């Protein structure tokens, strides 16, 4: 876009464009895309790029392949449950057994395991820190490191844990059907809530 405008720019405008590009390269571009608030229920889930997991089993779980990034609408599922957590967050730690139980409950049901996928983002956590968390609780679904907070920023700098449930549907945009801070509580009740909200 910047390149397209160059021919019509005067020298001063060109200089500003160069500054903008350099600023964009050296500065935290994600901050400029930061959201003021979490995605609201009923709204469209923002077009956030997640890294394609390196582990083959995690790629298979999400129905992805290759390298690079993906958006939630590429996940082979009808519903995606996204947790924003931090390994440093005591509430997240307390909630971890419920989250693990929820995942196990979904995976043990042949219908649900095809329809619902889970993923989690470690806000401000390095890959090492995310691994420490998943190892401590035996988490068996993809957890992403968000070391520079870019995903956290794009999701409105939520407190943790924060759960967002996204309904994926055909050609339509991914729709947020649940967006709340705090734990999920009893996994079966949460699953029923999600089933009702997703129709």
């Amino acid at each position, binding site marked *: 876009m910047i390149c397209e405008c160059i021919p019509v720019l005067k020298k001063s405008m060109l200089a500003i464009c160069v*500054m*903008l590009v350099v*600023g964009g390269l*050296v*500065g935290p*571009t994600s*901050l400029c895309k930061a959201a003021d608030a979490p995605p609201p229920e009923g709204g469209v889930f923002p077009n956030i790029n997640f890294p394609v997991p390196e582990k083959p089993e995690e790629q298979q779980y999400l129905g992805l392949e290759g390298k690079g990034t993906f958006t939630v609408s590429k996940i082979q599922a009808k519903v995606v449950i996204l947790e924003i957590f931090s390994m*440093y967050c005591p509430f997240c*730690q307390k909630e971890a057994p419920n989250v693990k139980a929820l995942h196990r409950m979904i995976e043990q049901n042949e219908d649900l395991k095809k329809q619902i996928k889970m993923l989690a983002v470690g806000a*401000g956590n390095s890959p090492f820190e995310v691994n420490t968390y998943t190892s401590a609780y035996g988490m068996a679904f993809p957890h992403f490191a968000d070391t520079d907070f870019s995903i956290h920023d794009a999701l409105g700098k939520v407190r943790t844990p924060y759960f967002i449930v996204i309904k994926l549907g055909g050609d339509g945009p991914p729709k947020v059907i649940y967006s709340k801070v705090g734990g999920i509580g009893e996994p079966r009740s949460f699953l029923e809530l999600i089933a009702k909200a997703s129709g």
Partner: protein
Amino acid sequence: MWKRKAPTALAFAFIVCSVLSLMPKAFAASEQFEGRVYAVGQLKPIDSEPKLKVGDKAPDFSLPSLSGETVSLGQFLGKQNVVLSFVPGAWTPVCSEQWPGYNIAKSLFDGNDAVILGITVDSVPTLFAWTQQMGGVWFAVLSDFWPHGEVSGKYGVLRSNGTSERALFVVDKLGIVRYIDVHDVNERPNLEVLVRELEKLKN
């Protein structure tokens, strides 16, 4: 018209991005402490003069702990490596998440034959209430409340306002300081860096 306004708009966008890039990173605050943490704002990153360097003998100390027992650095001599984790204060933003992180990393410390001694200048009752809010911690938490900040002072991490720095010292089994990280008080130290330093002690 657009062409005339474009430079102004682009310059504005650049300025906004630049200003935002200078803003401190907000830590992902845990809901656990919602409404209970005092917002200290952005502080001077380091506000003390170093007194120790790697290779120095770690000053011995004895401090009251949450368990009611007095804990001395010397009691670990010849037995275990020690990580001294000084944090500025209870009920403050970054500190309220640093120790809970160590809480689920016990195996990483055990695997390196290390214990953590958490130290702040707060009183024992305050530290008790704060760590209870975390759900408790597995390591010893010591109060450097009285004489106020004496141990923090010996380690060169007492800030001018009477709190301590966010600092990590690794002391080996011979009582020698092997690693010092007087960290930017506004930011949480990376766990991996600390673990890698502990791993070096095996060599």
